[in-house]
């Protein structure tokens, strides 16, 4: 099995990754909708190869405060994944979970951050289940870690991860919409030969 780089992921692979993104994000959205009894729909994911220098501004301004939830991915494939929410979306979800006034916008306390982690757990779990089901690979998430900070700073983490092997990063953008509007972004960061494993498990010739 050859080691393929991000650059070698051509159109054919992009389609496959888009489909994974679609199913994974669909699963994740359903999980969130069930948990919070929200009516949720989801945009068709966009899979983009973004130059690493530009990752900081994929969501908005680099100085905008966002919420990043990061998990390691282990067992058959290794790497990490990140789920990103803009601040209003994160407040909205936490308020729903805590059954609080939807307008409540105070800074997150410890309890709120636990709730954010739990959202991350559910979303990442659903996403990885879909990927695992499609590929027959065993994929185990680690516990989630959360950061609330400038987009540029949070996104420097995937920028560096991708930057070690490539000048580009593969980003799966999914907008999860409900009546109030939530936008979320997934970034899957497979390491080493994990891309090749995913693609060959799906029967894509490499």
């Amino acid at each position, binding site marked *: 099995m050859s080691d393929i780089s991000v650059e070698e992921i051509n159109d054919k692979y992009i389609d496959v990754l888009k489909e994974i993104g679609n199913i994974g994000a669909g699963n994740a959205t359903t999980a969130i909708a069930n948990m919070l009894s929200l009516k949720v729909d989801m945009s068709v994911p966009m899979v983009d190869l973004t130059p690493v220098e530009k990752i900081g501004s994929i969501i908005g301004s680099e100085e905008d405060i966002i919420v990043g939830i990061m998990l390691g991915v282990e067992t058959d494939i290794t790497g990490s994944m990140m789920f990103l929410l803009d601040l209003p979306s994160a407040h909205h979800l936490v308020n729903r979970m805590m059954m609080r006034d939807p307008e409540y916008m105070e800074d997150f306390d410890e309890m709120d951050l636990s709730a954010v982690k739990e959202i991350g757990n559910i979303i990442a779990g659903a996403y990885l289940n879909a990927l695992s089901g499609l590929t027959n690979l065993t994929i185990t998430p680690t516990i989630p870690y959360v950061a609330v900070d400038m987009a540029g700073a949070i996104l420097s*983490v995937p920028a560096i991860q991708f930057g070690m092997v490539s000048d580009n990063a593969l980003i799966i953008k999914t907008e999860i919409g409900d009546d109030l509007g939530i936008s979320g972004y997934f970034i899957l960061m497979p390491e080493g030969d994990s891309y090749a494993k995913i693609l060959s498990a799906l029967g894509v010739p490499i």
Partner: protein
Amino acid sequence: MGQMIKVGMADLKICKPPDNLTTIGLGSCIGIALYDPVTKVTGLAHIMLPDSTAIRNNSNIAKFADTGIQKLYDDMIAAGASKTRIVAKIAGGAKMFAMSGANASTINVGEKNAQASRDKLKQLGIRLISEDCGLNFGRTVELYSEDGSYLIKAVGKDVKTI
């Protein structure tokens, strides 16, 4: 009125008064500020990774501490700065997520970036006069060419000048 010139990720720029330099949202990356107090030649690099020799894909020299600082230094000299007068300040190198275990080595690249920056400055004989590195939050920095002051802004914290 001078311009506030933006330095992107894996980027470096130099300026002179009245212009100033900024880079937004340093996470694990490092913002390396070089300054010659006499000619007021001012330079800022935003590096992402410690070592260009450890990575196959290393065409963008501004991405790495070793090659980025070298290029910034060369550009400063070419713009009239004196080797003996250039001083440095660094900021960034945070650990944005408190991850441990198998993924920790790549996540903790912030500390490695800071150390690689210090090492490269030492090798070039540049005096590091102050730094604000580590911890777990992002930093936006502004470097002023008039006096070399280096402003550090972080979410929910007071502005700090080093």
